[in-house]
């Protein structure tokens, strides 16, 4: 319908964006009827999303004409932005920005570097930046899920954790089962993406490759390659994130500092985290 109304591509894009945003707001309205309040976060996310993608698109036009090394800067900037976004998912745990940055940079960075070296990712900016951004984005989502799940697991098992501490267990050992659960659950989307590839969803990358005239079989294989890389980047990120976040839940004297607000007002939050 919109294509019939708007002849200009830019106007069509704006109309399409407005239609999808409206749909997202409608979903939030339905959720609101069920006392689930995500309106503010959704509106902010929609506005941020459209502004950021247009800004980045405009910058990309300039950068793609620049030297190859600028892609490294661009990817590094994306990693920092991803860490800032992801860290907000674990408010209450000190040092989450550092954990997120290390985990996302190491997770996605290692895969990008190795695969570029192996020739799986082309060094051309038009290839390296979009694929790199996909890996960083997935690493960010996995990191957010890991931190979020870790926090809720710890908050749900305060009694067991403090019992283990009281019996002389090392702080990191007391949360080991919850790190494991966080790792496993954070990888569910990545595993499901890999399992359902081609059946439930066909990534945009494949559509793009087909449109640009690539061999369909090669396009299909390369999509598997991309999703596999996403899985590796996500897995590595979750592993590093889980290992690093453990110590941030405790003080130097092995006291649990991470606890729900209501509980912390009773027993008090403890400063001096490691």
């Amino acid at each position: 319908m919109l294509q019939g109304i708007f002849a200009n591509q830019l106007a069509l894009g704006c109309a399409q964006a407005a239609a999808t945003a409206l749909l997202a707001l409608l979903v939030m309205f339905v959720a609101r009827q069920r006392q689930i309040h995500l309106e503010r976060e959704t509106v902010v996310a929609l506005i941020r999303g459209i502004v950021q993608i247009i800004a980045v698109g405009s910058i990309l036009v300039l950068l793609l004409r620049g030297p190859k090394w600028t892609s490294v800067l661009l990817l590094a900037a994306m990693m920092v932005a991803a860490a800032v976004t992801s860290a907000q998912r674990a408010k209450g745990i000190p040092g989450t920005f550092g954990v997120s940055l290390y985990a996302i940079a190491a997770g996605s960075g290692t895969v990008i570097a190795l695969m570029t070296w192996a020739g799986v990712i082309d060094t051309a900016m038009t290839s390296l930046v979009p694929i790199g951004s996909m890996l960083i984005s997935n690493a960010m989502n996995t990191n957010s899920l890991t931190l979020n799940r870790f926090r809720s697991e710890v908050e749900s098992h305060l009694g067991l954790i403090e019992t283990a501490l009281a019996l002389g267990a090392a702080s990191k050992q007391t949360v080991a089962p919850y790190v494991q659960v966080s790792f496993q659950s954070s990888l569910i989307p990545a595993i499901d993406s890999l399992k359902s590839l081609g059946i439930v969803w066909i990534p945009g990358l494949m559509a793009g490759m087909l449109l640009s005239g690539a061999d369909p079989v090669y396009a299909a294989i390369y999509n598997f390659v991309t999703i596999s890389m996403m899985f590796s980047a996500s897995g590595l990120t979750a592993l590093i994130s889980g290992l690093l976040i453990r110590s941030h839940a405790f003080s130097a004297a092995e006291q649990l500092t991470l606890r729900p607000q209501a509980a912390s007002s009773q027993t008090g939050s403890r400063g001096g985290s490691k």
Partner: protein
Amino acid sequence: MLETEHLSRIVSAKRLVDDITVPVQKGEVLAVVGPSGSGKSSFLRLLNRLDEPTSGTVYLEGTDYRQIPPQELRRRVGLVTQTPYLFPGTIADNLRFGPRQQGEDLSEKTITFLLDQVGLMGRADSHVVNLSGGEAQRVSLARAIANSPTVLLMDEPTSALDEKAKEEVETLILKIVRHNALTCVIVSHDLAQAARIASRVMIIKAGRLEKIGSVTEVIHVAGNLR
């Protein structure tokens, strides 16, 4: 043996524990009583450094406990909580937990001995999900003893139990404390229980030490506590 020195903990400008200095002699059972929210549990949590004092400290056998590694301190100062949080697995798995942290493996003989002490003889392989509240608290007690502590802290260990289980666990506590020559600090909101178990009683109100003395003198004047 165990001595707090001007021990305080302030959270969000609230004085949970306010300048408490109290010595606890070896083998003594000190009951900490007071109304709800008076700071009894907060005081207890400071004794094994599950929480950090804002000021003051605790001396364990003459050593400032900040000089003792937390894991070692907590092995020596055991804790039995109001709710017996048991780890998934069998009773024996729970008893082995503490010693394993020090790289020791409890022998079958020791497990049998510990279970005998808490009246759960022959139940080593029972899964903890099948235990009653009283049984779970007995396991919690045996698990704390398995670490061979010299001090035992108990935070209202019978408050979640019915009358019958409460009496049984209370008797058990006395037996274990005497048998193992433990120094014991027990938090209770029940004055009668404090009188039965303790050799001395201290009353805390609004985080401050209100009174401390023998059972007779403190219980006698504290009739308006509740």
